[in-house]
């Protein structure tokens, strides 16, 4: 009985009573990490030195992904079910502003030339292109089915979007704001990044447990690299060569992929459904949200072991800190 009520109403009672008390206490942190609790509608503020949660703030409905602005002065949180973008100071966690009527933003991205702000709508099968200056909608494109993550080529000619439920990748021409092509890939593609050579797309395919390598100019699949069950997302190590791949199962793992040899060179146990990741600038830690465990897992990249499991909110998804090794 207690477990039921506590758990079922956890989004109501647990945090809610303390949120008002914590809000005024949010202050500048020496090292601040922000984790999005997508089911709670909250963000957890974590001290990156002590690994303590210093605050929890109600934000909006379904905050899934986040993205720093190109000038690094703001962190944009995409609130899918609230139709909002919420801007935070990434150093303090203080809210800066909200932009409403951004329809169902799920995954966000700025084109490298900073001329486009792109949002996918996972739930409503659509990709929206915005002017990044005033967030005015420029184009809205149908993207069946389940457009998830995105990547850009270095020249900002295209944005590539994974279509999770139709097992495809879509390329959108940013010049004409039209769909350039769609090609099939392995089952349930989610994460996608442009390899450092600007020639290959790396696509994490959950259903196949592989990272599929696509030569995007010829639209050919080059190879499939088995990383682990439910390969989900990719994050650069920051050395211009390696990428971490989260394999999002309960007993999950993270693989280290070498993009020069296109092989998995290391693999670490990271339980709880590792999802979004971020690497510390000094390369010593990788933080990953554990979607099915209400945790942020801190992987010590020296010992290759979990160093800390930080309890956050329900279904943690995006995670960010400013002292990172790079996002592209």
């Amino acid at each position, binding site marked *: 009985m207690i477990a039921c009520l506590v758990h079922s109403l956890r989004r*109501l009672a647990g945090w809610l009573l303390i949120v008002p008390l914590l809000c005024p206490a949010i202050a500048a942190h020496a090292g601040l990490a922000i984790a999005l609790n997508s089911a709670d509608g909250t963000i957890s503020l974590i001290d990156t030195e002590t690994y303590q949660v210093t605050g929890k703030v109600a934000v909006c*409905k379904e905050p899934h992904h986040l993205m720093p602005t190109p000038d690094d002065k703001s962190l944009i949180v995409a609130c899918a079910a*609230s139709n909002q973008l919420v801007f935070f100071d990434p150093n303090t966690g203080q809210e800066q502003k909200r932009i*409403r009527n951004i329809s169902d933003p799920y995954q966000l991205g700025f084109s490298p030339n900073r001329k486009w702000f792109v949002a996918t709508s996972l739930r*409503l099968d659509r990709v929206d292109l915005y002017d990044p200056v005033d967030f005015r909608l420029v184009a*809205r494109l149908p993207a069946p089915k389940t457009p998830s993550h995105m990547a850009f080529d270095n020249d900002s000619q295209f944005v590539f979007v994974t279509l999770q439920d139709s097992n495809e990748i879509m390329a959108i021409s940013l010049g004409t704001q039209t769909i350039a092509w769609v090609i099939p890939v392995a089952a349930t593609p989610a994460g996608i990044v442009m390899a450092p050579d600007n020639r290959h797309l790396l696509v994490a395919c959950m*259903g196949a447990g592989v990272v599929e390598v696509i030569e995007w100019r010829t639209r050919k699949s080059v190879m499939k690299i088995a990383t682990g069950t439910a390969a989900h997302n990719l994050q650069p190590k920051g050395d211009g060569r390696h990428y971490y791949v989260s394999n999002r*199962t309960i007993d999950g793992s993270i693989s280290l992929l070498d993009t020069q040899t296109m092989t998995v060179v290391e693999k670490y146990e990271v339980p709880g459904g590792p999802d979004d990741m971020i690497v510390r600038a000094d390369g010593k830690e990788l933080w990953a949200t554990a979607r099915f*465990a209400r945790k942020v897992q801190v992987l010590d990249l020296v010992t290759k072991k979990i160093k800390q499991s930080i309890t956050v909110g329900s279904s943690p998804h995006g995670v960010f800190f400013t002292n990172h090794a790079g996002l592209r």
Partner: protein
Amino acid sequence: MINACIEAFVELQGWLLAHLLQPVLLATGMGSYLEMAFDGIEFFLCGVLQITAAFLLLRPLEALRPIEVWPDRKAVRVDVLYSFLDRLGIVPLLVFALLAPLFGSLESWLRFNDIIPPQLEDLFPALEARPLLSFLVYLCILDFTEYWRHRLSHTFRWWWALHAIHHSQRQMTLWTDSRNHLLDDLVGGAWFAIVALLVGVPPGHFVGLLIVVKTIENLSHVNARLSFGRFGELLLVSPRYHRWHHAIDLPAGRQYRFGCNFAILLPIWDQLFGTQYRGQTMPPCGLRPGPLPESAAQSGFWRQQWEGLCALAVSFFPANGHGKERQRE
């Protein structure tokens, strides 16, 4: 202690996902649904705990202070089945599977035409930072809309033909709450989806809202001599208050021609809209033969579903003798 309970719950939730659903979803190319499956397991586990809690707390109450004592409880068994199908997520899953594509397409079409359905927080931004207040406001809104859904299900002839299944039980117990025709559940699901589209129910509140509503509904159907007193019944629907809604013979008065006490949680809606009846006794429950045959009180699950469909078909022909209003004998 509380944290340990949450940890244990999440641990079990994760274990069930890893060993039951994850392999199937990944093998069938449905990896996208892992999060949904995880939430579904939460729904299932909450249902298990909610049923257990309702049984442990309310069944002794029924044994200690029964309103009615029956020679046997055979007629109650089907309600137990309904409760398990409902609380453990089987009926909600069916309803969701049928309605989600429809409402997803509708919402997608609206967005493509630059229509973003309004949300309560757009009107009252303060709610965004006050989840407790937000939860209570959404609870009130949903209860208000549920009052009207319930009232209309007694008003429209076709809907009453389906909803009558719920009222056909003469041995009303804590299990009776979930006794509904599947089509009635489907219409109820569509009603909720429309409300969610119009005001934007926060997904994070959903399970909590459901637990509160279902727990009160279990309580309001209990076969126990229990009222909250004259003052308490102004605030929350009690077993005595709701029993009058299930009474075989409705109170006299034109305002009660379709029934009385339609409120789910808050009696204020009945008070505001003139359908409140503050009876002090505990009347017998059930239906006179009308849209459903007398046998419906004793029927099994599938027979009841069939009887509901027959009643629905008949309801489209008003000349057949079944009046629009509930018949008072």
